């Protein structure tokens, strides 16, 4: 069976890979957007913290014997705490300066984390098994669907939409959005904005760590797994519009799928297609698809 001259098996296979990549793009760009909204910095350490999440899962298994499901809970908390420490000790000192200093600082932090892990674990990947409950797959007739991959797509979609709901539809989210608009005024109403900023940063990097755990069984655990991924995610964020929550979720998944299909129809461009789209979008809408003009 073929579609557009391509076997459907390959087409749906790439669609699935695209959705998986899209899930990671969405989780990571969502975290970046949440952080950017309140802190006004681009968190360059996001990729390194995503990698750290995968490593926490690996350590849990190797050192403590805690499996995948525990890691899904523990890794975001551990990495979130690292993020909170980072914000309290370093980022906090830069808020009165140009936002670019935040970018430079987190870039330095990313280099330190990645370098340290590379020293300890080399640059070849460490294997991390698929949890037994999700091994195997289903034959859907037109394609084979591995259970774990289906789980990753569904779970990250749920997390993304949950985050969107909390930010856009609850009281806590309203505080958050208000603080994004005017922190001084929100503080005057008696809300502890500095603590909110700290927790937001912790939450954002926690999302990255969660993505890292989800990625561990698919891509292995590798000190450099976040290094190049983060640049693609930056492009995704630019396309979606910085700071837009729904924008990052939709563009994340959509670009993953576009990238997957590019692999089928024009493989040479699969690495660059997202950047080309970014250039085109910037040409038409400099603030991104879902962003407001700055």
């Amino acid at each position: 069976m073929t579609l557009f001259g391509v076997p459907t098996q390959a087409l749906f296979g790439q669609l699935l890979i695209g959705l998986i990549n899209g899930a990671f793009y969405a989780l990571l760009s969502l975290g970046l957007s949440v952080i950017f909204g309140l802190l006004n910095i681009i968190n360059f350490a996001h990729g390194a913290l995503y990698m750290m999440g995968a490593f926490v899962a690996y350590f849990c298994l190797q050192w403590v014997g805690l499996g995948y499901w525990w890691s899904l809970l523990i890794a975001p908390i551990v990495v979130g705490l690292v993020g909170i420490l980072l914000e309290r000790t370093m980022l906090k000192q830069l808020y009165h300066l140009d936002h670019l200093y935040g970018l430079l600082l987190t870039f330095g932090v990313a280099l330190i984390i990645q370098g340290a892990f590379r020293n300890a674990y080399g640059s070849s990947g460490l294997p991390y098994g698929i949890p037994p409950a999700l091994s195997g797959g289903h034959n859907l007739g037109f394609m084979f669907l591995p259970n774990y991959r289906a789980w990753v797509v569904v779970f990250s979609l749920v997390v993304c939409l949950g985050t969107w709901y909390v930010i856009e539809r609850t009281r806590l989210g309203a505080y958050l959005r208000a603080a994004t608009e005017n922190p001084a005024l929100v503080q005057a109403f008696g809300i502890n904005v500095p603590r909110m900023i700290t927790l937001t940063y912790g939450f954002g990097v926690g999302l990255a760590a969660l993505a890292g755990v989800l990625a561990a069984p698919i891509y292995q655990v590798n000190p450099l797994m976040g290094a190049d991924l983060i640049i693609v995610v930056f492009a995704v964020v630019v396309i979606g519009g910085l700071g837009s929550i729904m924008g990052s979720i939709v563009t994340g998944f959509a670009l993953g799928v576009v990238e997957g299909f590019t692999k089928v129809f024009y493989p040479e461009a699969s690495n660059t297609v997202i950047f080309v789209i970014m250039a085109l979008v910037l040409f038409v809408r400099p603030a991104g698809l879902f962003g407001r003009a700055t």
Partner: protein
Amino acid sequence: MRTTAATGTPPAVIAAPVTAEIPVHQIAAFVVMLGLLIVAPFFLYPIFLMKALCFALFACAFGLLIGYVGLLSFGHAAFLGSAGYVSAHAAKVWGLPPELAILAGTAAGAVLGLAVGALAIRSRGIYFANITLALAQMIYFFALQAKFTGGEDGIQSVPQGRLLGVLDLRQPYTLYFVVLAIFLLGFLIVYRAIHSPFGQVLKAIRENESRAISLGYRAEHYKLIAFVLSATLSGLAGATKALVFQLASLTDVHWTMSGEVVLMTLLGGLGTVFGPVVGAFIMIGLENYLATLGAWVTVVQGAIFVVCVLVFRRGVVGELGRLIRKPL
């Protein structure tokens, strides 16, 4: 970066007369730098010095943009690397003499700078950094896949040839002084640009873009010209580097290289003339010295980044300038 804005530098900087005379302390600093660079090859390994000179030129080109226009480009490796590929290809495959190969590479940097600049210049701050980074990554993947770049191998054993048919560049000392001359040319172009009426307008845009526009300056044109100039000189550095090492490789187009030049400029001192040069020599020296440490180099670089951003924002030359109370 607008660090001085808070101190209330008067925006009347546009009206300030551009003095034709170069301050004595800057001439003195230049003479010291020139003297050191002339005697250096007799004490230090020339290849190391040439590498440092290429990066010093690269950092000066980058510093023009961040220090005097306030634009942080995170994609400058694209210009360095592409120019390297073009000049290596020109020298090896087309058999062009070195001066034309370097010119071809520099032109490639300029054209690419115009394309990237035209897209990126409309955005500011973090957006600008992000967009330049992503566009540069696109060029990295292009270099990885294109035929003429040789993929992972790069372009190797590039012939150095004779400059203008006379100077044999295979002689290390000849090559060194040619590279020094190229560096000085680039350095003086940057110096001239900064201290010209054009440079004054750039500074005005950095301090207060809306006001500069309201005074009738077309900010986007000025920024684009500065960007293309910076990309061209980065291209000159990359093209020269390819001939010095007889190699054009993926390292020079990768985003880590873009990060490195940011670090050099930051460490030397943002918004200083000599800062990028000092920063480049420190970083290349450090890499040379720490080469045996492997991945720890990354950790050290990251730590320097963090320290510079948190407590050492003026950089080496910035601090020196503060000590003598004159801009260097």
